[in-house]
């Protein structure tokens, strides 16, 4: 089964600074999708960014970007110009393209933004 590992249970960043959250995964599949989800306290889980494994170019969404290293099975999230509203739990998730509809989640990283 696929596994997703987030080795940083907690991270903190100064407002306006940059922070990188780590994620590694294990799979034998060649085609898959990777996601970062954000879950603010007591609020809805929302998609931050997604990456398709067959695309070499790293995905970016405004202040959010990823560093996707397929050979290393690494998928880190960089948040630039951190804002107070970025404080949340961040979950890394994996979905195989051709092996079913399940998503595999990491254990999450709790991000604190310091004013």
């Amino acid at each position, binding site marked *: 089964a696929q596994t997703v590992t987030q080795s940083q249970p907690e991270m903190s960043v100064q407002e306006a600074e940059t922070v990188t959250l780590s994620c590694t995964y294990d799979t034998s599949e060649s085609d898959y999708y990777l996601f970062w*989800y954000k879950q603010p306290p007591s609020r809805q*889980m929302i*998609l931050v960014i*997604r990456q398709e494994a067959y695309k070499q170019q790293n995905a970016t969404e405004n202040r959010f970007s990823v560093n996707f290293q397929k050979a290393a099975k690494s998928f880190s999230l960089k948040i630039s110009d951190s804002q107070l509203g970025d404080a949340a739990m961040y*979950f890394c*998730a994996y979905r195989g*393209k051709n092996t079913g*509809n399940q*998503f595999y989640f990491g254990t999450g990283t*709790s991000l604190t933004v310091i004013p």
Partner: protein
Amino acid sequence: DAMVIQNPRYQVTQFGKPVTLSCSQTLNHNVMYWYQQKSSQAPKLLFHYYDKDFNNEADTPDNFQSRRPNTSFCFLDIRSPGLGDAAMYLCATSRAGGPSYEQYFGPGTRLTVT
């Protein structure tokens, strides 16, 4: 706006008293999921439907059941809630076969068992 809706947002039930949580979606997605999430933990998949095909996780207790009467609705039934079942229950949807593969989550139902 297309969305995933969960009702109720908060549910209090008594120990052993059956409870049903509901989820509806306007996204017309063919896959619907139920997750259990306890404080500061990752969501734990209970089961999912691909159209009418039910897929149960091996470690989901028999106490948890689900129904999907049509594409738009999915229900989670907890037959005899225990104190350990107190959690946030998340419904999510996705499209099998693309073009977008991400999950869309509802706001969750927080279940309290007294």
